[in-house]
């Protein structure tokens, strides 16, 4: 089996194919601290792509509550249990990836959900871990805690859906790294459904073939961010292109958050897929859980995020989240503004770093009325 380098686990690993990186890599950063699980992204995606027969329970984008939520049911907990306890040593993963833990005759360790596992997409919503006792104070990390994880396909560098398909029906686009299922070539074996640890390949019983998140490639080709990003009312998402750590460009917003500041972390890096959706971890959650979910840099990321108020670049960049429909390739801090640039260097967004703040007197002398506090 060929050996490839996965920077997220800091070492070479086994993969079914030779390593071949795309010219550009589609990537997103989600700030979990700002997600309120309103599911606007979910509905934006659903209306755009999966509103047909046979897609009723198919959500290319979903938002789940951790620790109890999961769509499909228990997708991560079950796979972690199958994989068993694993170890990191420093920044290097010394355990087994799902490729290295593949049983005899398989290409990866995989979980194949049942129909029923897709039937409760929002199970566990808002359920906290821990007991809410009398006299409880708000401490950080929170004693009873939960947080929201928005999820789409990770458009992985070493995609397991792609490796699992015996027919080569799944491919990764050279131009932007988006992973797609060739609908003309798929024969509905559901090997990708089983192989993807994130469960973002779905079988559609009415057509007999599988479908997955397409990264809104028709929009990306026009320099636009996907529907789930454009419609995020919490402005928690930013889509862009990611370089390798050694080629990191500090003016590229995704590189800046992932490589320069270490604020955004991959989801379950131990699975070994080098996924390209990055999460700013929630600051109020016990670090042990976050380390399991986002890798050994979770605590450091939280410290950086807490200190970000003093880092105008981070504060400025976060203002650019949700500021434009266009893909931001570069950003620059001006005195009191942050500017985002498109692929050709043209300005696509300009926002104040600090929103203007107005204080009005309590009594309106023009109308001779006291003002009420309203939101």
């Amino acid at each position: 089996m060929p050996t490839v380098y996965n920077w997220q686990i800091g070492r070479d690993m086994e993969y079914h194919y030779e390593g071949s990186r795309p010219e550009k890599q589609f990537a997103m950063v989600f700030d979990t601290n700002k997600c309120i699980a309103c599911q606007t992204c979910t509905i934006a995606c659903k209306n755009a792509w999966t509103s047909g027969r046979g897609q009723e329970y198919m959500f290319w984008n979903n938002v789940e509550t951790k620790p109890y939520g999961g769509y499909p049911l228990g997708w991560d907990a079950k796979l972690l249990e199958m994989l068993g306890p694993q170890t990191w040593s420093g920044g290097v993963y010394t355990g087994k990836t799902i490729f290295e833990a593949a049983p005899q005759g398989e290409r990866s360790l995989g979980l194949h959900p049942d129909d029923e596992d897709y039937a409760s997409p929002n199970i566990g919503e808002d359920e906290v871990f821990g007991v809410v006792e009398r006299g409880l104070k708000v401490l950080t990390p929170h004693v009873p805690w939960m947080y929201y994880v928005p999820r789409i396909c990770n458009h992985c560098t070493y995609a397991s859906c792609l490796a699992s398909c015996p027919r080569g029906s799944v491919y990764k686009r050279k131009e932007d790294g988006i992973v797609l299922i060739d609908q003309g070539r798929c024969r509905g074996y559901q090997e990708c459904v089983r192989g993807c640890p994130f469960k973002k390949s779905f079988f559609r019983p009415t057509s007999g073939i599988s479908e997955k998140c397409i990264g809104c490639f028709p929009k990306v080709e026009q320099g636009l961010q996907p529907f789930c990003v454009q419609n995020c009312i919490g402005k928690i998402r930013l889509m862009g292109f990611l370089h390798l750590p050694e080629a990191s460009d500090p003016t590229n917003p995704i590189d800046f958050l992932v490589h320069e500041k270490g604020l955004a972390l991959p989801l379950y890096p131990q699975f070994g897929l080098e996924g390209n959706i990055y999460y700013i971890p929630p600051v109020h959650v016990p670090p042990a859980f976050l380390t399991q979910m986002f890798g050994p840099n979770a605590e450091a990321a939280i410290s950086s995020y807490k200190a970000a108020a003093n880092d105008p670049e981070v504060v400025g960049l976060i203002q650019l989240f949700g500021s434009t429909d266009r893909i931001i390739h570069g950003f620059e801090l001006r005195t009191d503004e942050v500017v985002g640039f498109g692929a050709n260097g043209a300005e696509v967004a300009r926002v104040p770093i600090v929103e203007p703040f107005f204080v009005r007197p309590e009594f309106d002398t023009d109308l001779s009325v006291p003002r009420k506090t309203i939101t």
Partner: protein
Amino acid sequence: MADLVAKKVDEVPLDPQAGEWADATPVNVPLSPQAVTTPSGGGAVTQVELRALHSGGAFAVRLTWSNPTSESSVAVRGFRDACAVMFPATEGPPPSPIMGAAGSPVLIWQWKPDWEAPAAAAAERAARYPEYMDFYDPANDAENAQFGDRPRPQDKADVIVAEGFGTVTRVGDEELDVRSERDGQFTRVVFRRALPVTAPPLVVGAQGTVNVAVWDGASGERGARKSVSLAWTPLTLEGQPDVPEPSGFTGAPAIQPQVVALGLALLAAGVIFAGGMAQTSDFRKQVEEQRQREREARGKPPAEPPAAGGKVP
């Protein structure tokens, strides 16, 4: 391995229970789990019985296997039963008995219950996935939603060319007829097609070869997870060659000119196919063109003799 002899009958039946089948000699083919490539699996079916018939103009083969749990439609983590017969699609020694190999293609006929009886499968699916709302949605008009894994409604079975693992490419063949039947715990499937069925053609009196695979849906078998025979079964069409050997065509078996044409076309296509997957559409086009010519020839007086051949009786 016992030879499979296709018994000569006046008319080849499609009905798996037709009386003619009782007179055809059965051959039991042992099956093994597919363990050569990943993902591996299968093994739920350990044996399949083959019987074959021909009339000189048509050929049929019947597969019978023990199948206590019949699965006829697909679902999430739900798979259907299936079976397939495979013929070499190249001259010379038979290709690998497991899906052929690069440069030596195989032709496969695959039965899927939901292809044979789409209405029944649709009803089964509707019961499992009820329509919760009746509304028009453009997503239903997308090509993949309309056809999915069955792009040609006229095809009753899947007709495929392969050159090794993962290269299965649908070529389609509406002339292939298929019918299945449950008989207690057994499933019987008959494939029937007008001769010639493949290239090199199955010729009356000469020896060909066939291989089989069976998928048990209830055991999660699909794709490479299947029960397969690891060796070809010799196949002979009973009787003497219908056509006397043409003079001036020494060393070659006596075959009809349209058979030569199909053989040459498929052989040539096979060479092109070896060039890579990019050639697949060319191959498919050529096969379709050849089939069109075949259909036209049937309705017309005998074709002109091929330039390289001798006189045609």
